[in-house]
């Protein structure tokens, strides 16, 4: 039962490869979109404008209160309708993939916003004052003084969050998107090798994630030294 049938895995390499591609696409889009969205939200949160602050606070609270599974189900419901209504749904796009990407970008924006906000607030007030004394505008202060320092300080936490995102993409299972995990399960069910396939999937995730978190630890130690 545990004998891993390598031939069947080799035969299924295209399916698994396609799954890996989906996992990587969702992960990378979630990280890139999440950092951009998170930076915007964080700047709203530390801006002096009350309306912007309230918006950022509400957004972060809302997205952090709802489980990822529900968010994925929600956006798989909403995104296709929006695409159909506003963009004239083209049959060539993979609705599940787009829905998952939208859900992840919006959710991770909330998480990155909290990380970046903490990074900005961690800087001393003197940084803002010095920039103001030099005659910089608010935008210049953020871009040239605050954000570069904040990003350096929060790099380890952000990298850890990236590993979490990579793991969380496996939840696209609930909208039947064929990522690495879903396709591994499908092949296991088809060939009656679910047990070894699940162990294989677990081992793959473990190897990648523990390798990456080891790397983060090295980076962290080097930064601390």
């Amino acid at each position, binding site marked *: 039962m545990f004998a891993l049938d390598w031939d069947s895995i080799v035969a299924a390499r295209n399916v698994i490869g396609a799954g890996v591609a989906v996992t990587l696409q969702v992960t990378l889009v979630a990280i890139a979109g999440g950092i951009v969205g998170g930076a915007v939200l964080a700047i709203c949160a530390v801006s002096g404008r009350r309306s912007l602050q309230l918006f950022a606070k509400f957004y972060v609270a809302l997205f952090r209160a709802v489980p*990822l599974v*529900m968010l994925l189900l929600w956006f798989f419901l909403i995104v296709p309708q929006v695409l159909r209504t506003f963009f004239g749904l083209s049959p060539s796009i993979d609705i599940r993939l787009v829905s998952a990407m939208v859900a992840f970008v919006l959710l991770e924006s909330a998480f990155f916003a909290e990380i970046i906000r903490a990074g900005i607030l961690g800087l001393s007030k003197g940084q803002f004052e010095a920039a103001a004394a030099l005659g910089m505008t608010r935008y210049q202060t953020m871009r040239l003084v605050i954000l570069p320092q904040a990003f350096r300080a929060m790099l380890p936490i952000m990298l850890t969050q990236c590993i979490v995102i990579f793991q969380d993409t496996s939840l696209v299972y*609930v909208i039947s998107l064929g990522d690495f995990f879903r396709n591994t399960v499908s092949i296991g069910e088809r060939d009656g090798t679910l047990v070894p396939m699940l*162990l294989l999937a*677990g081992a793959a995730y473990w190897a990648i994630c*523990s390798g990456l978190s080891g790397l983060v630890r090295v980076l962290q130690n080097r930064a601390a030294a």
Partner: protein
Amino acid sequence: MGYNWNWGVLLQPVATGEAATYLGWILHGLLLTAALTLSAWLLALFVGTAFGILRAWPSRLCDAVGATYVSLFRNVPLIVQFFIWFFVVPEVLPTAVGDWIKSITPSTQVFIVSVLALGFFTGARICEQVRAGIAALPDGQVQAAQALGLTRLQTFRLVLLPQCFRRILPPLTSEFLIISKNSAVASTIGLLELSGQARQLVDFTAQPYESFIVVTLAYIGLNVVILRLMEWIQRRSRLPGMMGA
């Protein structure tokens, strides 16, 4: 968008012939989510503390055992762990135990598996908090305990752990919040908790927005209740000068 809102559907009797309404199903799901969250948190606390003690124990071997547990359960996605607990573990156990597990009512079986999966997953996070909490205590605590003639186990039970728990109470309670959200993953192995009911209702009523909105509000409500509870616990247990900020 041509969507026909029909909130009344939630109060209709369910199509399976049970004496329940669809709203009743959602409430049942909410109860299951709450029960699962609480049970998994208690298990996580127990498992996390046990392995946390192992990690802080002055023995290379104990530390390695604890570190292996943390590495395994933190670096594999939660849904994969759910599937392994559900599909793999009964096969690995001795046949008699496996058969016994398979003889349990499916709904009970899925609930127990969910508690185990969530508990051990979260336990790995709590383990690291316990270890850090013990490591943060000054060396003098251990030395003083030894000077009083306490055994190693007594030192942990009477001196280190009580102080450690006071310190790590805030992260421990936020784990409770995290479990309540992670519990939604249990729907993938067929547990009809909140999000499982949300999916089931879409199939039965064809009114996805109504059921999703009610379920989402239920999650938000649960969130608010847990947050209030956390604040209350933290206020109750605060000692002057011990909680940091």
